[in-house]
């Protein structure tokens, strides 16, 4: 049970499928273990998975939500920007948002008449702005703490920054932290878990001790320590979340490897002289991936939770970056500005929920025994 999920900082839930025990990783009394049949072909398996997955309406809803979020993050600059899509000014037409990409990549320049202008105040110009005509960094000292209104759909914070813009651009931070952190966790976890499960003996012993160490560390506390003491940077936060949350993945991988290693086809491969590395990563791993996939999805949700907790405490986020957690942080001190508390929290909630639904949906599809019970 991952009752203290954020708190332990263990991004990948310590709630494993009932087939492995939390601490020792040994098999316990439980059901009859049935190992997943080796896939005939990888593509066939995943297509089946997708078909099964689609049958679950709730999980599907979650999936669509995740897609929407991903799109929002990708298209943030087009959804909330202080530059217009299209500008017709003094007879010429421009596309400022695209232009800003070019300039940022050093592939273009601003024409002198558009250098550092306020696009909203150009006289005689016809401009077509994104739905949210602000960037999260646009400060307006004359409009602090505005309640949600037509001008600012979700209100403003203490510096007059638009909350909606902050949330849209904040999704980028949240999602990228999720992906990178879990990416790191997966790499470390899979490798260590595979080594432990495959070779057994002293390697397994050492790695299991490592599991225990990582589990015994008050992870959230460690995160706070590192993030608070080092200069704040997103990369640092991503990395340390990843470094402290690989244990769940490692354990699943180890268990799967333990199970699969004893199967006939593996024994055969070894007898045929296939190198250890090939056996591990070409023969066993593809079949061991099922719980790992689930962990990845759930792990992303966990990483987002952890990151928002850290930026809520005011650590780990650079000053200029607006993230969901940082808006929430303001909301906790300016309690009359309820919109600062409600919306970013809701965004985190919806994101995390969507990932959970997808993860659970995947697990139901991939875990044969649960399927058997349906």
């Amino acid at each position: 049970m991952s009752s203290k999920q954020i708190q332990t900082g263990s991004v990948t839930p310590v709630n494993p499928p009932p087939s492995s025990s939390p601490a020792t990783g040994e098999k316990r009394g439980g059901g009859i273990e049935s190992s997943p049949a080796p896939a005939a072909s990888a593509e066939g398996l995943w297509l089946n998975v997708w078909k099964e997955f689609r049958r679950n309406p709730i999980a599907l809803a979650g999936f669509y939500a995740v897609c929407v979020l991903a799109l929002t993050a990708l298209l943030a600059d087009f959804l909330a920007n202080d530059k217009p899509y299209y500008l017709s000014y003094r007879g010429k037409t421009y596309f400022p948002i695209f232009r800003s990409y070019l300039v940022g990549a050093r592939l273009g320049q601003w024409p002198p008449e558009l250098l550092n202008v306020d696009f909203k105040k150009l006289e005689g110009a016809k401009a077509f702005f994104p739905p949210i005509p602000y960037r999260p960094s646009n400060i307006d000292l004359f409009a602090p703490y505005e309640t949600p209104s037509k001008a600012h759909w979700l209100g403003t914070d203490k510096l007059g920054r638009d909350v909606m813009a902050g949330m849209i651009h904040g999704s980028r931070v949240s999602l990228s932290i999720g992906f990178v952190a879990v990416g790191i966790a997966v790499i470390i976890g899979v490798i260590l878990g595979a080594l432990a499960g495959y070779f057994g003996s002293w390697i397994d012993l050492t790695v299991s001790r490592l599991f225990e160490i990582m589990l015994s560390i008050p992870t959230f506390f460690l995160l706070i320590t590192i993030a608070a003491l080092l200069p704040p940077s997103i990369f640092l936060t991503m990395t340390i979340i990843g470094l402290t949350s690989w244990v769940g993945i490692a354990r699943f991988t180890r268990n799967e490897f333990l199970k699969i290693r004893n199967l006939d086809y593996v024994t055969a491969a070894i007898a045929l002289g296939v190198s250890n590395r090939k056996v591990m990563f070409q023969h066993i791993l593809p079949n061991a991936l099922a719980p790992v996939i689930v962990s990845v999805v759930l792990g992303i949700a966990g990483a987002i939770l952890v990151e928002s907790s850290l930026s809520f405490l005011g650590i780990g986020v650079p000053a200029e970056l607006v993230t969901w957690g940082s808006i929430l942080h303001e909301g906790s001190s300016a309690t009359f500005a309820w919109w600062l508390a409600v919306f970013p929290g809701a965004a985190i909630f919806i994101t995390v929920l969507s990932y959970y639904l997808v993860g659970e949906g995947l697990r139901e599809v991939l875990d044969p025994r649960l399927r058997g019970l349906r």
Partner: protein
Amino acid sequence: MASYTLQRLLLLIPTFIGVTLIGFLVMRLAPGDPAQLRAAGGLGGAGGAGISLQKRGVVDQALAQWRAQFGLDRPLHVQYAIWLKNLCTFNFGDSFKDNQPVWSKIRDRVPVTVRLNVLSILLVYVVAIPLGIYSATHVNSLADRVTTLAAFVLFAVPLVWAATMAIVFVCGGDFLYLFPPAGLESLDFASDWSLWKKLKDQAWHLFLPVVLLSYDGFAGLSRYMRSSMLDVLGQDFVQVARAKGLAERVVILKHVLRNSLIPQVTILASILPGLIGGSVIIETIFSIPGLGQLGYESVLARDYPTVMALFTVSAILTLIGILISDLLLAAVDPRIAFGRRQQ
């Protein structure tokens, strides 16, 4: 069994060293010099702000001295060794902030955090176990689906959000005032109040923090209980029991429950490390003087001895938890202690 116990105990030692070493390295290797914090800010000085150069030398010397006093100028491995040695005599050193022995600072706060977490754990078990049982015995019914969905929703609610919403909406801000926004007891708490009054006051103050700490446990544990019961329900011996003609209720309560409850105890192993880290957010938001808050403040103040001590305490708690759960499992399932892996 005895040898297994011994084995497990011995294996604790490297784990313990590993955890404390990591904590130690993190604190020491992080940039920033605690002497600066201790010796008052560093920029200020004589007269109207600022400090003249001649005096700078005096200050630097004093800082160096302070570092030497706390052994911060020795090489890292020496510092760690000294710290370990002191640990054997339960000497956690003195806090950098106020020279109080770290142990007494921790000791003062332990009851608070323990109270909070024990109540939370109790609440979780009291709510989640029955929920899990009900779900498992009425699998796929409407109630089951609703509970499952509710569990997900609860799981996904970020603690920081729930706590902030609580503070904003029900703790005396612009909206409702149902619960106090801070502290463990009312300010006019007097020791001559009746026991009932004291309990009521405590409950009023602790309600929100405990519920907030517990809600994701409701979700997690009930799901875990459900799936472990389903596991057991699918086994042969249950069918046998039913075939024998035992009433369903007896089957569930006597046979199934006993077998599925045991793994729930192992959850304790994952709860104990959360004791310190987990409370940080709640204790910070609600100004509760517990270990989590102490940890957070000590990190910011670079109070190395206190941080190390908290790390150690947390490590010990976790290791104890893991040990207990492993021993319990071994006691129940002989295969673990005596049967090794088939490899």
